[in-house]
């Protein structure tokens, strides 16, 4: 069942597709094996440490992130898996959390949905893998949904250039 039926939502969802030049098992493992997952999940240069990894419905992946190895932790976050259907489908709720896995707000955006449900599907096509990700807030207020919708593609054009300049400025 699609997440839009199981977790009703009428706003604008995130829909991203990407084809990876890798067999489906490898892509699945990158998401579902703790050692593999922590190698790519965090922003470039950051250090993700997985503290709990329980890949089953209602099981939790709890991790923290530091700006670089050896640096203090910037944040804690978690996945709560809802469906695990190897190697084709992974449904999980993503949220910021405290170190015990308790749900907390986005540390940078005061008004932001606490929980976002994501449906990841993988399909093999001629040795390549098509990844489709759909995501939307759950249990969110109207204001939080508005923030989520506002943060989608529309904002990028206005701000991307500014952020690039800022990055360059700070690197100078």
């Amino acid at each position, binding site marked *: 069942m699609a997440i839009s039926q199981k977790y009703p939502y009428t706003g604008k969802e995130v829909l991203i597709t990407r084809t990876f030049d890798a067999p489906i098992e490898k892509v699945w493992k990158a998401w579902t094996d703790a050692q593999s997952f922590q190698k790519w999940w965090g922003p470039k240069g950051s250090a993700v440490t997985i503290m709990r990894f329980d890949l089953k419905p209602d099981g939790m992946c709890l991790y923290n992130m530091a700006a670089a190895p050896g640096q203090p932790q910037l944040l804690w976050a978690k996945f709560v898996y809802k469906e695990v259907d190897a190697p084709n489908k992974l449904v999980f709720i993503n949220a910021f959390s405290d170190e015990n896995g308790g749900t907390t707000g986005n540390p940078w*955006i005061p008004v932001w949905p606490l929980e976002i449900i994501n449906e990841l599907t993988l399909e093999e096509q001629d040795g390549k893998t098509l990844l489709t990700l759909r*995501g939307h807030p759950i249990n969110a207020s109207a204001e939080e949904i508005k923030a989520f919708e506002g943060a*989608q593609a529309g904002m990028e054009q206005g701000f991307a250039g*500014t952020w690039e300049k800022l*990055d360059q400025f700070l690197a100078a």
Partner: protein
Amino acid sequence: MVKRYSSLDSELDLIFGALSDSTRRDILKRNAKKEMSVTDIAKPYDLSLPAVSKHLKVLENAKLIQKHRDGKMYLVTLSPNALMEASDYLRSYEALWNDRLDRLEQYLHSLPQ
């Protein structure tokens, strides 16, 4: 200190507001290289200490810097990584996912065949 604002736009206003002033940009630039005391930061400017503190407060509210006490002194550090992570979110949630998938792609390429 955690401040709550009414919308995403307010958060952006804070950041861009903080960066709209040349003294504050200069403070960030100097501070990017090392941790500094408030007195050190104030030195090159023809400004009173309270005026400099006010600029720092604006930067702190926008979460561009962090202040912590060391004995009698306040030390200021830049939070560029927090800023860059925040910028991913603020730029666009979709861009955040695209960045993640870029890294997944690089990771998959790095694996042996």
